[in-house]
């Protein structure tokens, strides 16, 4: 999953990820998207452009059904 904050400066960036991702997927230039999201520093910008989200691949290996209280006893 995308980091909640920039590793270097600590700026909160988690809430910008989905907008960034959908706008870049629809063909916008990442540079323009980051500029309009007000992500100005290089440390925060690299968080976006270098991120690879692989949680969807892990999702198919996790057990969805809840273990429940009975299981623990």
């Amino acid at each position: 999953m995308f980091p909640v904050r920039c590793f270097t400066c600590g700026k909160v960036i988690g809430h910008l990820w989905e907008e960034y991702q959908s706008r870049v997927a629809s063909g916008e230039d990442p540079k323009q998207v980051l500029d309009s999201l007000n992500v100005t520093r290089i440390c925060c910008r690299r968080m976006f452009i270098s991120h690879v989200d692989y949680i969807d691949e892990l999702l198919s290996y996790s057990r969805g059904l809840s273990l429940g209280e009975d299981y623990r006893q």
Partner: protein
Amino acid sequence: MDVKILKLSDDYLEARLEGCSEALVNAIRRAILEEVPTLAVHEVFIFENSSPMFDEVLSNRLGLIPLRTPPGKYLPMDSPECLGSSEKCFTTLSIDVSAGDSPLTVYSKHLVCRDEDVYPVYGNIPITKLPPGGKLRLEALARLGRGKMHAKWQPASLATYSFTDSPDAFVFRLESTGSLPSIEVFRQALDILRDKFKTLLDSLTLPEVEEKRGGEEGVDFGEEGGR
């Protein structure tokens, strides 16, 4: 000292400080980053977590989510009055979500606090993702801490100053994480500095020993004498 605010919004402050030394401006900067207290998740009790993310990673992410902090309502965890489990020392937040037939992304808005004055500043921070039928059930304690203990408690992601053409004027920039409005961060930093200097000033009275010593020779350093 003359302060002129150039730009001000809830999460950004730019001010021109005039007629002060760089040391003072730096003291303000450090007070902001290290001393101004904010709320952040500090303890997490996980009852059920069927996301692919480990409990530890999940807790770390919860800690980094900025929480709106009502000033003065809670006691910093390093204050002497903050003992045990008093109401003023922490607040509780919880997440209870379950995915239906399709995967579900858990967002920061799913964090519900028992105190309605405390809430995640941004609601759409993805925390984790659940597989179909998955559940996430947890309780978290948020405590008031300081940036010097852990960066999650820093009220600002940017606190810096730059030089100007004049040697006694600086441009100060502050970018708040949203836990506190930027102007409140600045104000609290100044309050903290004032209290620190007051403590220093109060301890600057002459020690009583000096006055009543009279004819005795030497200063008493304890049992070992003045070695």
